[in-house]
């Protein structure tokens, strides 16, 4: 079966939207329960920096699709799509781990976010590049 860009776009957008929405919801609950005190903006900033740039790329593609330059039927590169989707899933899993592992270690959430920030920066750059290349390549 041939993969189309429309299918890949929807799948990637789902991974990123659901991954972000759950994290954001958890963050809201934690903030209202006083976990971060007055420093909640630091945590929101951390999450936004790690997810919103790539999410905006996804929505850019989504808007472009709606504006008439439809990607629906264009065949997609299967290997690139697999790399993009699997690396996105691993990326979100690692972000979730920061939140879920924190109660089990002696570090504070801020320390963990501080430690992980440069590593996530590199990963995010890599994933965004793959996703961006994936969409641009098929269109040309």
């Amino acid at each position, binding site marked *: 079966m041939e993969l189309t860009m429309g299918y890949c776009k929807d799948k990637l957008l789902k991974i990123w939207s659901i991954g972000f929405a759950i994290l954001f919801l958890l963050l809201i*609950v*934690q903030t209202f*329960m*006083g*976990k*971060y*005190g*007055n*420093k909640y903006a*630091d945590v929101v*900033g*951390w999450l936004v*920096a*790690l997810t*919103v*740039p*790539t999410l*905006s*790329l996804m*929505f*850019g*593609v989504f*808007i*472009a699709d709606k*504006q008439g*330059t439809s990607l629906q039927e264009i065949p997609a590169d299967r290997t690139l799509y697999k790399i993009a989707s699997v690396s996105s899933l691993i990326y979100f899993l690692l972000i979730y781990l920061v*939140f*879920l592992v*924190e*109660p*089990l*270690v*002696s570090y*504070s*959430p*801020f*320390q963990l*976010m*501080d430690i992980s*920030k*440069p590593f*996530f*920066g590199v990963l*995010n*750059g890599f994933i*965004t590049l793959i996703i*961006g290349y994936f*969409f*641009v390549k098929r*269109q*040309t």
Partner: protein
Amino acid sequence: MKAVLSSLSLTVLGVFLIGCPGDMATNNSSVNRPTNTSTTVNVSGTPKLTPTTTTVNSMPTNSTANSQPANTGVPTPLPTATPPQVAKQDEGQFSFPPPRATTFAVKPQLGQIPLRDFFADLEAKLRGAGYTYESYRHFSHGSEFALVTKMEQINAEGNHLPEPLRWSEYLPAADGVSSYANYLLKGKRAYFRTLAFVVSQADFNPSGGQSPAFEIAKGWIRKGHIIMQDTGPGAGDPQGTVLNENYRCYILVYIFEKHTSEDSEKFMDWFPVSAEQQLKQMNITF
């Protein structure tokens, strides 16, 4: 195509911003480190003074006055005398009268026992509760004596944490489902305790005066003496100071709270478990 390219450039900009050094490092890296902000708390206030301590207060010396440059035409402000309790606390000493305690108990009328025997008995009880020779120090000032324990970590029920967490400042990790859920949603909360056994004839209010800063209370263990220094009325006699019914033993409990969202530990004015109950939990009875 243009929209995709513009999104991509926005993304690259975002990724670049992630790589830039953020504020988080400066804001939050001090979680387990001492901060200087809290040490100023004690210096600013005016503590309650007893007659014994007020006599120690000294006026500015001549040498200080002479060191000022002459004929400058600019009026120099007179140096203000620092109250002894503030000065002692500033040096990191356990001061008399003691700083405000979170909770306390009093044993009135100690009876006719030598001071050394009283403290020997107390030290034996403390060792039974897990305090080694390295975990307490003695302070004395005239006829007032204190034994202060090392800062230890306790739980919300007033029981000390198992070693080595007991003597560390690391926030404890979750050890069950309920504590995991609690830490995940509400954050970690740790309590630190220092006990002070003060033997004194003076009448003071343990819940009055200035509360100690965490760093100062933590530093008491480094400032005191390993062996009790008998500076009391009978200090020159072979028998040393002998306590009588005028002496009381104040058991002062200092508790500090640390939450993951805060940079420094906060003194607690109130703790749900009383001093008496905490001593009972450690099998320290008088």
